[in-house]
């Protein structure tokens, strides 16, 4: 596990070096490549963390429903609202990713 983390950190550290090295070669191509990389990495990160957050929210909501079946409707509404708020953060990243990928700069 630690080795994987170390290796990915090293890979990340190597990225700017590659960018500087390739700067002279083709600036626009490199920028496009990094935009794709940023979109993929960023969206993956956001989606994964959103999964953690939403899982926690939904789990707690189910817990509460099991304890108090009478309040299921209200808990469900609150849960949906909370999930939407958590999800909207991912959607901001999604919009950024779409802008990075499809908008010609």
């Amino acid at each position, binding site marked *: 596990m630690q080795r994987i983390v170390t290796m990915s950190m090293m890979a990340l550290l190597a990225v700017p070096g590659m960018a500087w090295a390739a700067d002279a070669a083709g600036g626009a191509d490199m920028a496009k490549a990094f935009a794709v990389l940023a979109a993929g990495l960023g969206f993956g990160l956001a989606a994964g963390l959103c999964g953690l957050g939403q899982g926690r929210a939904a789990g707690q909501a189910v817990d509460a429903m099991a304890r108090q079946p009478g309040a299921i409707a209200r808990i469900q*509404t609150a849960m*949906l*609202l909370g999930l*939407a708020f958590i*999800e*909207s953060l*991912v*959607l*901001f990243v*999604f*919009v950024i990713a*779409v802008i990075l990928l*499809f908008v010609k700069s």
Partner: protein
Amino acid sequence: MELIEHPPILHIAAIPDHILYTWIAMAILVVVSFVASRRVQLVPTGSQNFMEIVLEQFVKELDETIGHGGRRYLPLIATLGLFILVSNLMGLVPGLVAPTANLNTTAACALIVFVTYHVIGVRKQGFIPYLKHFAGPVPTVLKPLMFVIEIISHCARPLSLSLRLFGNMMAGHILLAIFFFMMGFDGMLGWALRGTMGGLVIGAPAALIMVVFVVGFLFPLKILVAFIQTFIFCKLAMLYIAAAVEEAEHH
């Protein structure tokens, strides 16, 4: 995007797609409402019954969220809700475009909500008391800080409202486009139809699996998302209005 996305069936060169499909959604709503309210009866039948059930859901939510006097805002909330629901569901029909998958449409809806709840707050409370409420229940020293933070949070509301709806619809749209592309004639199905060994062994089962996955999982998910996003948009609009109205009643 243009590579994998199929252009919509109905396309007029001078008019952007989302405007055209907004008109179609409006036409659907107008026709349904007209048919439902043509002969209003005390004991509803048919389409009138259907529309009454739909509107009763809005009334129930309004009573729950705003409480007393909440039904005044039924026209606004129900119009927004029905329009967004019809637009979201239009995105599920292949060949049609969801108007809500364009940021302009959702931003328009969110701005309407934004302006409306401020106008309601000012009318209920007067301009100066309404502004004072942004400062909140904190010590006097902290009030300027709270005021600035509240202003920023209020400005973020239409942003998050519009981006949430747009992001959900757009993401679903791209997801469906990619899956249709992968299983279509340019993807797995095309590979299988080419008649090579690999195509028959891998392409055909993969196309079948993808069809089952899309029809059995993605489409129900998208229908669920369409309804949930409509619900959330309306619920948040109601909550904002309720916050603007409630403050008036406490003071």
